[in-house]
C-alpha cells in the first residue's frame, strides 16, 4: 500500500476514478475521442491525400497541417468541455458535496480532475496523430518532440484551467454542455482549427489572437511544419496559454462551489431513491 492517504496517493486514486468515470460514459468518450477524428477523415476526403512537392523540401501532405490543428482542438475539448461539464454535473448531483464531506484535500481533487483529463487529451491527440501518420503521411521530426510536448502540456493545462472556470460558472449541469459548445466551437473557427483563412477580417483575427486556442493550434502546427527547420520553440504562444490557464484557475478558485445550487432545478432524481428494494 503506497502512501495511502498522502496527497500524492490520493491524487492518483482521484485520477483513476475520474478516468474510469469518463471511459464508462460512452457519449463523453465518443465526442471527445471520435468526433475530432471524424474531422480528420472529412478533411482528408475534401483535400485529398496527395503529396505536395516543393523544391528543396521532402514531399508532404496537407494533413501535416490540419492533423496537428485537430489534435490541439481535440486536446482542448478533452480538457475544457470535459472538466466543465463533468464538474457542473457532479456539483448538481451532490457528488462534489460528498467529496467535500470526506477527508479529501481540495488539491487532491483538483489534481485528479486535471491530470485525468490531460491524460484523456493525450489519448485523443495521440490517436489523431497516429491515424494521421498511418494513413496521411503525417510525421514529426524527433528534435521537435520536446517543443511539441511542451505545447501540448501547456495547451491542455490551459484548457483544463478554463474548464474548471466553466464548471464553476455554469449555472446548471444540464446547461453546461451548451455553454461549452457555444464558447468552444466558434472559438475553434476563429482559431484556424478548420480552415486557415488567408486574410481574415480584423475582428476574427483579434478574437483568434486574444484567446488561447489559436496559440495552441499554431504552436502545435509549428512543430509539424514541413517548411521550417527550427526547433519550433514558441515562448510567446506558451506564455499566452499559461496566462489563460492561470486566469481560469483563479476564476475557479473564486467561484467554485461544492454544494448543489439552492435554486437549481437539476436536483438529483429522488424517485430512484424512493423506490424500495
Amino acid at each position, binding site marked *: 500500500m503506497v502512501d495511502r492517504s498522502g496527497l500524492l496517493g490520493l491524487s492518483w486514486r482521484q485520477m483513476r476514478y475520474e478516468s474510469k468515470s469518463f471511459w464508462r460514459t460512452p457519449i463523453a468518450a465518443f465526442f471527445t475521442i471520435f468526433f475530432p477524428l471524424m474531422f480528420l477523415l472529412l478533411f482528408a476526403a475534401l483535400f485529398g491525400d496527395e503529396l505536395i512537392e516543393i523544391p528543396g523540401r521532402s514531399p508532404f501532405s496537407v494533413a501535416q497541417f490540419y492533423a496537428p490543428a485537430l489534435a490541439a482542438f481535440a486536446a482542448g475539448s478533452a480538457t475544457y468541455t470535459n472538466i466543465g461539464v463533468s464538474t457542473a454535473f457532479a456539483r448538481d*448531483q451532490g457528488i462534489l458535496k460528498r467529496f467535500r464531506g470526506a477527508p479529501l484535500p481540495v488539491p487532491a481533487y483538483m489534481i485528479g480532475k486535471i491530470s485525468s483529463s490531460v491524460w484523456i487529451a493525450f489519448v485523443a491527440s495521440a490517436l489523431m496523430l497516429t491515424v494521421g501518420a498511418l494513413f496521411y503521411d503525417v510525421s514529426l521530426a524527433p528534435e521537435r518532440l520536446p517543443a511539441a510536448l511542451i505545447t501540448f502540456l501547456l495547451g491542455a493545462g490551459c484548457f483544463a484551467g478554463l474548464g474548471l472556470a466553466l464548471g464553476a460558472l455554469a449555472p446548471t449541469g444540464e446547461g453546461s454542455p451548451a455553454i461549452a459548445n457555444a464558447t468552444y466551437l466558434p472559438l475553434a473557427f476563429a482559431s484556424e482549427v478548420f480552415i486557415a483563412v488567408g486574410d481574415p477580417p480584423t475582428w476574427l483575427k483579434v478574437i483568434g489572437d486574444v484567446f488561447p486556442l489559436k496559440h495552441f493550434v499554431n504552436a502545435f502546427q509549428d512543430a509539424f511544419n514541413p517548411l521550417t527547420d527550427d526547433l519550433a520553440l514558441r515562448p510567446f504562444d506558451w506564455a499566452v496559454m499559461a496566462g489563460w490557464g492561470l486566469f481560469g484557475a483563479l476564476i475557479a478558485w473564486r467561484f467554485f462551489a461544492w454544494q448543489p445550487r439552492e435554486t437549481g432545478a437539476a436536483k438529483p432524481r429522488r424517485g430512484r431513491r*424512493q423506490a424500495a*428494494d
Partner: protein
Amino acid sequence: MAAIEVRGLVKHYGAVRAVDGIDLTIEAGEVFALLGPNGAGKTTTVEILEGHRDRDAGEVTVLGFDPAEGDRDLRERIGIVLQSTSVIPELSVREILDLFGGMYPRPRQTDEVIEIVGLTDKADARIKTLSGGQVRRIDLALGIVGDPDLIFLDEPTTGFDPSARRNSWSLIHNLRFLGKTILLTTHYMDEAQNLADRVAVIAGGVIVAEGTPDTLGGRATGSVRVSFLRPADVSGIPGVFAVDPGRDGLVAVEIDNPTVALHDLTEWALGRGIELERLAVTRPSLEDVYLSITRDTGNG
C-alpha cells in the same frame, strides 16, 4: 467532553431565519434524534455541524473542532450520510467504497462494510444498475467506511420498505454498541422512539422541546387515555366516564389521575358483573406529542 456543543446558532437566508438561536449538547456515545417538520431548520443545522454550510452567528464545536474551518482532522473522524444525494453512478459498489475508504487513516475493510449494509451480492455491480433502496444503503456504507467516531444520518431510512428499515435500525444499534455518537434527523417517530437516547424537536428554527423519547413534552407525566366499549347499561358509572361514545362505540377519556379513576371504573364494573370489552390505557404516542408540539408552534 461533549461530542457536539452548539450555543446560540443562527443562520439566515435573506429574510428567512432558518435557524434562530439553537443550543444543543450531544454527549459522546449518545444517539440523538432531531425531529421537526420540513423547513424547520433540521437540515440546515446538521449541515452547519457537518461543515457543509457557514453560520451567521453562534458557537459550534464538533469533536473539539469548529466545522466551519473545514479541518481535515475533523473530517477524518466524522461520517456523513447525506439526504437525497446521488452516488457516482459509473462506479461499482466496491470501487466507490475503496475510493472513499482510501481517504481515511483507518478505514474499515471494504468487504466488511459491504456485508454490513447487505450488498455482498451486488459488490461488483455498477451503482447505476441498483435500486433506490440499494443506493441508499451505499449512502449508509459511505457514512461508516472511515470508521468515524461521530456519524450524521440525515433521514437515513426515507423511502425504505419495513424490512430494509429494520435492517438499518439494527445497524444503527450496532454502531451505538461500538460507542459511536450518532446525530439522526428523521420524521418517522417510530424511528426516533426505537433508536434515540434523546430527541429534540425543531420548529421555526428553534428547539421547542427536548428530552428522552419517553418523556418528551411531558409524555410520561401528562394525561392518560382510557377507552373501552360502552356497556349496554351505564347507570351509576363514575361521572368522569359518563360521556357519549364515539361512532365506534368506544368511550374514550383523557384523565390525569388514572390510578384512582381506573379503580373507580373497575370497581363499578365488578359490582355489576360487567366485562369492560376492549379496555385500554394508553399514553400519547411520541407522534401525538410531536404533533401537538409542532402544532402549538404554528409550524405543522
